[in-house]
């Protein structure tokens, strides 16, 4: 069975995508890898690859209510029970606010006249492709104007293939989309940066991982030698030294390659080796568990 690794961070811009795309590429030289981009509000992983074919697309929809005015008696029950203010009954008829609807189905559940039907509304799209034989790719894209990507993430995750390892590029933050991404994951790589902000947001994410019982290791990105005496460095070392698996230096060349949409590991063999070691360690620990 595939090993599922989520790459996440809390804080945005620490290098989740950098780590996810480079790790996926380097591992695919030896084993089969599927890279899934679950940062559906701002998916970026696709920018780092040249794809073999056209993207295969699949729409993601939410089932929202459609009211049959012939059957509706305007009793108002649907509006009373909707928790999201998404359906409102007026003398002139029933109004559905599509953007507020969570697609829960309560309105049709309570309608005594059977006047409410579920109809699909497009939320976003999934796209799939192959980079190389051993590296497959998938991403979820939330349509602009939609408020929640949770459904797109859960649909994306129904598309695991039979690769040896599945790497998921997670959304930033620590709210429900992150939890959705983490369900059923074997191990989390927490990418943080060498700053007080990075530390603060990493700690929030680690709270979730502990609560969900998911093992994790920490990658400190943009590591600087001159931060040795900083307060946040002391906390990293004191509280998390056992979990810190890798430190990637702040390097203008890495930043520049990444800014152009290139995979930096191709030019940093030492970091490639460190990625392989990190993965082997995760596998050993998974067997151990």
């Amino acid at each position, binding site marked *: 069975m595939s090993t599922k690794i989520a790459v996440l961070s809390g804080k*945005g*811009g620490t290098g989740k995508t950098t780590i996810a795309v480079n790790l996926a590429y380097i591992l695919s030289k030896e084993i089969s890898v599927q890279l899934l981009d679950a940062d559906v509000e701002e998916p970026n992983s696709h920018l780092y690859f040249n794809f073999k074919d056209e993207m295969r697309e699949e729409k993601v929809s939410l089932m929202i209510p459609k009211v049959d005015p012939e059957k509706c008696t305007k009793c108002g029950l649907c509006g009373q029970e909707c928790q999201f203010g998404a359906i409102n009954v007026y003398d002139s008829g029933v109004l559905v606010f599509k953007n507020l609807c969570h697609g829960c189905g309560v309105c049709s559940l309570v309608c005594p006249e059977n006047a409410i039907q579920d109809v699909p509304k497009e939320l976003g799209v999934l796209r799939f492709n192959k980079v190389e034989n051993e590296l497959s790719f998938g991403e979820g894209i939330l349509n602009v104007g939609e408020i929640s990507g949770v459904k797109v993430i859960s649909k994306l995750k129904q598309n695991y293939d039979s690769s040896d390892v599945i790497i998921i590029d997670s959304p930033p933050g620590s709210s429900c989309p992150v939890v959705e991404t983490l369900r059923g994951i074997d191990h989390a790589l927490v990418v943080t940066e060498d700053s007080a902000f990075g530390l603060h947001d990493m700690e929030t994410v680690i709270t979730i991982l502990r609560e969900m019982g998911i093992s994790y290791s920490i990658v400190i990105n943009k590591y600087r030698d001159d931060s040795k005496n900083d307060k946040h460095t002391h906390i990293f070392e004191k509280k998390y030294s056992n979990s810190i698996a890798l430190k990637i230096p702040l390097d203008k060349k890495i930043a520049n390659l990444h800014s152009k949409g290139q995979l930096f590991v191709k030019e940093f063999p030492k970091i490639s080796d460190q990625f392989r070691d990190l993965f082997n360690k995760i596998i050993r620990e998974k067997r151990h568990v």
Partner: protein
Amino acid sequence: MKTKQIAIISGKGGTGKTTLAGSLSVLFNNHIIADCDVDSSNMHLILKPKINETKQYKAGHKAEINESKCVGCGKCQQVCRYNAIYKKENGKYSVDSFACEGCKACVLVCPKKAVDFVLNHPGDYFISETKYGPFIHAELKPGEEMSGGLVAQVRKQALKMAVDERKAFVIIDGAPGIGCPATSSLTGTDYAILVTEPTVSGIHDMERMMEVIKHFKIPFSIVINRYDMNIEKSVEIEEFCQKDNISVLGKIVFDEKVNIANSNEMPVVKLHDSKAAEAIQSIFKKLKDELTL
């Protein structure tokens, strides 16, 4: 005089929203500061607030199954569209509160009235004093939804205080992304600054964010952070803006002193001899001109 709300947003995370918002908070006078990145709030680290009041944010509900009343019929599980209800080994059902969206379907179908519908407490928000002005920030509990609602609450509190205390501005550090927290940071503001960086991802996310801002018809301008990290991409952004008639408010040079400021948890603009601090000063000047137009 109407209070002007100014949002600093980005789409992509880590482009330097908080760095810029933290410094603008120092430069503005007569303002309230609001940190709307409630998932990963960082402004308090640099502004060092003295918290005067903590308020509970209560919103939405979660279902909880009372095991002693549950007969294991499974009707709740059948209607739940979020896979939030699972069967336990003893044959009774339970709710995964992370997955529950509080829609009430299970409560409505349970024949034994075994499902309680409990008011949720997704986080808290704080009213503080800082050296640079009053400050509102929040903490969403890890894994919670309703972050958009909490953002709205922070905004409401900040605006109320601004009106009560006759403040001219609310400076908003926005949430990343294009979803609910990001749009809640943006709706109804008077001006937005979109911070981007010269990378393929920075540009991609900037373009998506522009669609959102245009949808709300909010006047906005661009700041390119670390612009010299990739000059070609910066030029690409500038050309894009020129073509679309969008003003570039400023460009901030990659300056290692920014890391030092962030490490020492201080606003960048307080640095001496810093190119980034100078750039932010000039952004502030241009911003004031834009706002008086």
